[in-house]
Structure formats: C-alpha cells, structure tokens
C-alpha cells in the first residue's frame, strides 16, 4: 500500500475522567478500503467513531483526513470535508417525513448552505438527488411517511440513507444492522456495498459472517487498544484475537474460505 492513507490515527487516546476508554490507537485506512472494526461490547468502537467524526476531541494523539488534521475540528466541518457517519442508535429527524430526512442529508453537499431565499420545493437537483437516494435504499414507497412511524428496520435503513446522502467518500457506519433480522441484514449490507462502491468504508459490525464477507481488512479493538489489524485470514488465524475476542472456533464463519 504505497498510496497515502485517506484516514489516519496516530496514538489517539480518550479518557472520560479516570476511565481510559481509548488507549493509544494507531490506524491507517487506505483509500477505497472496506475496513471493519470488531471487538467486544464496551471496547470503545463507538467512542473511536465519535473521535474520528468530531463528536469528541481526543485527549491526545492526532487524526488526519487526507493529510489534514481533524482532531478537535467541529463535526460539521469534518462532514464538509467528505466524512460522513451513521449512529448505532438511530439518530433521525423523527418529526419529518422520510423524504425530508434524506433531503436534510443532501442539502449541504448540493451547495445550498443556509439559503433563505429559495423555495426548497423548487430545488430540482435536490429533489432528484433525494429521490435517487430513496430509490437506491428502497424507501421510495415510504417517502411521505413520518420517520417516527417507520418500522425499526426501515428506521435503520433511513439512518444509512441520511449518511450516504451527502455523497461523502469516507463513510463510517456504527453497527448499521444492529437489531435487524437475517434477511434485513443481508439487504442492508448489499445496500452498503453498493452505496460505498469506490469509497472508503469504516464499519463496526458484530455479525462475523458480514464482517468476513465484506471487509478488505479488519481491526480488532479490545479495551481501547487495537490488538490486531490485517486481512481477514490473518485475523482469523491470529492467536491473540482468538484468545481475546473470537473465543472458540465455532464462532468463526468461513472455515470454508
């Protein structure tokens, strides 16, 4: 990998008072890579995403996006630099319709900023992009429903839709399939694959089948430390990982691989 990393973490640490939640993470993500972060509950995966996306400021260390420092930068600025994220717990605009939710995700990237002199209904490029996104995630039939009244899986899909709406080329997904059934998970993953084609994807996922099927590389986070990073095979065969996280062999899918 001679290409410079698109996203890079250098010895990033995060303390919450006495709790050292992230204890020195160093990670390089190559452009176009699909990278999964796995680890037990409470390992600090979401915290890591919160640090990268700007919700938290690291206690120490540096995060760069395409060579520019983003640690300590406000989330909306990081978003404008082309990094978008989804949330583990659906974080949508529940008083709005599905269509309006996606439109909120589209607006800034289409250059309308804080425009206050144009009727939003007449912004044809925005409408087209919104429809395109709704169509691609399969929510077009529910476009005019209130987001609050959506079924759980549809809310998760909407969360993904808002995240990809801006067309950011670095996408962070925090357990996008959490709580979904098998078929829903398959559909969501297919959707994520399609939507992040040619983009960089960082994904937290608990379903090992999904993880090993989707990712180019995997990092294992335990107690706020990356204990291993590598290709899926390397991770599968890593003794440390087995001991610390994957546990018994039965949990490992793709023995056939």
């Amino acid at each position, binding site marked *: 990998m001679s290409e410079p990393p698109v996203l890079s973490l250098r010895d990033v640490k995060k303390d919450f008072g006495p709790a050292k939640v992230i204890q020195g993470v160093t990670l390089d993500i190559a452009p176009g890579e699909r990278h999964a972060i796995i680890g037990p509950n409470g390992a600090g995966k979401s915290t890591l995403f919160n640090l990268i996306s700007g919700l938290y400021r690291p206690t120490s260390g540096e995060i760069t996006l395409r060579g520019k420092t983003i640690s300590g930068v406000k989330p*909306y600025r990081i978003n404008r630099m082309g990094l978008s994220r989804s949330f583990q717990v659906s974080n949508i605009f529940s008083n*709005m319709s599905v269509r309006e939710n996606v439109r909120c995700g589209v607006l800034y990237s289409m250059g309308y900023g804080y425009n206050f002199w144009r*009727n939003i209904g007449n912004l044809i490029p925005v409408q087209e992009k919104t429809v395109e996104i709704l169509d691609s995630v399969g929510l077009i039939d529910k476009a005019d429903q209130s987001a609050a009244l959506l079924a759980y899986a549809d809310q998760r899909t909407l969360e993904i839709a808002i995240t990809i709406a801006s067309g950011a080329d670095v996408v962070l997904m925090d357990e996008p399939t959490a709580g979904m059934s098998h078929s829903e998970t398959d559909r969501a993953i297919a959707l994520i694959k399609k939507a992040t084609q040619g983009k960089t994807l960082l994904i937290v996922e608990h379903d090992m089948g999904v993880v090993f099927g989707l990712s180019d590389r995997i990092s294992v986070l335990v107690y706020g430390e990356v204990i291993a990073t590598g290709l899926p095979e390397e991770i599968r065969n890593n003794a440390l990982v087995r001991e610390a996280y994957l546990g018994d062999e039965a949990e490992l899918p793709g023995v056939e691989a």
Partner: protein
Amino acid sequence: MNQQGTVLDTVSDLGPSRRAKFTRRVLPFIIMAVLLIVIPMLGPSRTALSLLNAIGINIVFALSFNILLGQTGLLSFGHAVYFGLGGYTAMHAMNWIEYADGGFWGSYPMFALPLVGFAGGAFAGALIGWPSCRRAGIPFSMISLGIAELVAATGLIFVSFFGGEEGITGDRMNGVEMFGLNLGQVHQVYWFIAFWTFVGTVAMYAFTRTPLGRLTQAVRDNPQRVEFVGYDPQQVRYLAFIASGGFAGLAGGMSAVNYEIFTPEALSLAPSGLVILMAYIGGIRYFAGPILGAILLTYMQTNLSDFSEAWLLYLGLLFIAMVLFAPGGLAGVVIDVTNRLGKPGAVQQFVKGLVAVATGMIAFFGVVILIEIAVRLTNGHGEVFQPFGIGLPSTSLMSWAIGVCLVAIGVFGLKFTTKQVGER
C-alpha cells in the same frame, strides 16, 4: 437515459400534488387577502378598525416569535426587545422623514416605514443573538430574560434614543405618499396595516419553506444529527434569531405608524410575556396558530379590560387551561375537530363534545362569579356583581355558595362526560 427518465418522473410524483400544494399553501393566503379587502366594505366603526389594526400588529409580532419557539425550539422571554428596538428605529426614521430636506429620508415613503423597523429588529437580533444563540434550551431562555431586563433598564437610562418615560412621538402624515394613502384617518392606516400584515405573514411562511427554514426544524428536533449532515446548529439558530428579530421589528414599525408613539414600556417584560401567551394559546406547532392567538388575545385585551378589571386573571386561567387540556392550542383544536368530522361516529362525538363544552361553561361561569365577587369585595368600590340582572353581593354567603356549586357541578359533569368519551 431510461433511468434518468424514471427518476425525473418520480420527482414530480413525489411530495404533495399540485392540487394539495394549492389548497395547503396558496388558498389560505388568498382567503386572507380577500378577508382583509372585504372587512372595510362591511363598514366597521372606528373602534373596530383600531382593534383590527392592533390585531394586525400582534399577528406579525406573534408569528415572528414563533420562528423561534415553534420552528427552532427556542423559548425567548425577551422578544419585545426586537419589537421595541425595531419600533424605536422606525419612530426615529419617522422624524427624520418629517424634518428631511431632500436626501434619502426626503424621498422615503412613510408607508415603507416597517422596513426600517425590520432593519432595526434584525440588527438588534444580529447583535444580541451572537452571545444568546451559543446555547439552546434553558440557558438560551435565561440569557433572553437577562437581556430583556438589561434592555428594559437601558430604555429608561438612554433618554436621547428612548425619550425617557414619555418615549418618542412623531407624525405619520409626512413624506412621500404610496398607493395614494396619506395615513391620516384610521381607515387609511387600516390599509397600511393590512398590507404589512399580509406581506409579513406571506414572507414568514415562505421562510419556513426555504432550506434554512427547514433546517431550523431539524435543529429543533435533533441538533446533534444536524452537525453530521454538514450544518452548524448554532449558525442555524443565529440566522433564525436574526430573521425573527427582523419580523418583530417589522411589527414594531407597523406599531410606530399606528400609534405614533413608542415608550420604553414596549421593551419591557409585559409584552414579551404576552407574545408567549399569544403564540402558545394559538398553537406553536402550526404556522397559523399564533395568528389565532394574536386575534383572540388582542380582542380580550381591548374588550375584556373594559368589562372586568380582573381580565388578566382570565387570561392566566385560559393559558393554564390550554396548557392542560389543549397543548396544541386553538389551531390544534380546530384541526382535531375537522379531522374527526369526516369519521364515523362524528355526530355522537360532536354531541359529546357539546355536552363537555356546556359543562365546562358551567364551571367557567362559577369561576367568573367567584372572581368577580372577590374583586368587588376587595376593591372597596362597594358595587354589586349583577350577571343577567341577578344581584350577587360580595358579602352574602349565598353568592359564594352559588359560585362554588356551579364550579362543582361543572367539574363533576366534565369528569363524567370525558370519562364516558374515554370508555367508548
């Protein structure tokens, strides 16, 4: 190519149809315009016209307040500050127009004075909003309260700008005329107020339909998510704050022309509180809510205050009743009733509703008796409260008993009927 076609087709299919857009977004404004034009043809009295003028001003003021509360989720306790500062700016401009010899103010029509008010209010919003909008929620409200106190005090201190307790006066019959109106008579002022009420209402509705207007709602509901779609919630609040201040200033400019006087009282907490009541009683979740609230409260303010010295008590009771029983405000009640009308069992529900209203009225009447005899007992004028010619002396135990009984009957009746509605 083909795909492009389908996408474009769905664009026009998506969202409300043309017909729905017309009935929801255009028709109400046509009705409003027609009403505004028809009213003077009914030959209203001078008193009625001045009431209507006061209503117009308050409609714009209450709508501007709701840009903050209903739309952006910011409860300001000091909204009269922008009304007042805009109004004072307009008042000064009125005098500049009068004493201008040529120049900008020499050619500025008095009719357009509310635009000066808008500029003054927006400027005040831009200055004061800068520190205020750094926080939302309770800190925002507390800061707005502090600023309201501060500006109200300033109003009495800086005599050259605010004119001390007497305030600043002017004469609206100056400057270039527009639409052939010299603004002399109250019916001329009516056209002025009607024009700006309409323009202000349309402009504020249009604002809700812009990208920024939509984002204010997003910020109200989920500021965190807004940050992750590329927007700074603080900036959204700030811009909404400026817009809200501007429209409050517009109302202030209308008021300057209507009354030809502004006093520091206009900046005080009392009008700031009244505008909260207007918006809330009307219904903050609906664009038209504050309009209804402004009409009702302005009417109460002018008419009820003649009828009873305890009118503020009734206002308080109305507010509490709305918060408890109809949090959607008057607009919410109207929409609820119209929604139920088409449904099966509508007639039964309607009858039940009437019964509930009737029992509610009994209770309300009991409360009125108690309040009125209490007022007469303590104010020392010694007059007797005589509803429908029945004398109810404050000193007679009988009067009190009647009041208490009516309240009891009403409350029990209400409990009984609402329980039955619930069981169905």
